[in-house]
């Protein structure tokens, strides 16, 4: 998985590219986010536009990141999830847990 970070209005946008599956992106994503939180950057927007595939390990990973960010008083939101990833979050009843957006500007202003 490719992970790029950019800071927009004090919010870290994490641009992901690839798959979030067992032994692939998962550990890498967690490490990146945990490092961000350590540095106090705890407003995080995960841009999943280029994540084409995610399995149950990936879902678990998202939750693990979500919980960690929240425990540290931060916020983790999702941007541009694909129809299929939305389906996965829907059937696992997690869609109401994650805030998600399809417009970056709106997503960013929601952190205010």
């Amino acid at each position, binding site marked *: 998985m490719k992970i790029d970070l950019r800071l927009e209005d004090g919010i870290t946008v994490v641009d992901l590219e690839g798959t979030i*599956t*067992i*032994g692939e992106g998962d550990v890498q994503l967690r490490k990146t986010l945990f490092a961000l939180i350590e540095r106090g950057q705890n407003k995080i927007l995960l841009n999943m536009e280029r994540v084409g*595939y995610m*399995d*149950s*390990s990936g*879902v*678990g*990973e998202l*939750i*693990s990141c*979500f*919980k960690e960010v929240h425990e540290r008083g931060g916020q983790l939101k999702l941007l541009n999830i694909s129809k*299929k990833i939305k389906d*996965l979050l829907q*059937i*696992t*009843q*997690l869609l109401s*847990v994650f805030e998600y957006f399809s417009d970056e500007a709106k997503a960013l202003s929601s952190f205010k």
Partner: protein
Amino acid sequence: MSQLKDIKFVDLRFSTSLGILDIIKSLMGRICEQMEFDEDSSYWIWLATQEALNNAIKHGNKMDKNKFVHLVLSTLDDEFTISVQDEGEGFDQSSIPDPTAPENLLKTSGRGLFFMRNFMDRVEIQINQGTKVTLTKKIKGSPS
């Protein structure tokens, strides 16, 4: 000649490895295409299969490279059957919690079997020598 391109049956036994997963993905993609599953169905069939393979590797064989995973892909006119067998100790199916129960919603694992059941028409689990998970998907429109 074109008929001879079709892959009807594959029986694959491999030493525990994550590196083989994307090759199995290509193989299954090819079979789904030839069975004329639409793109969405193929996607979910692979997701379910990958969950079964992950469980075999992680929970069954406990990442032990000296153990084997046994995958059988077989196609009939109207259904695709995938079985995944490991050399692990099995597990108690009745003790598997429902991942959509409120107290489990934020657990970081426990959704693999749920995905298999969601996306396949039939999921059978036999525990004998290791765990054998059999997934079946019918071609849309075929009588069930």
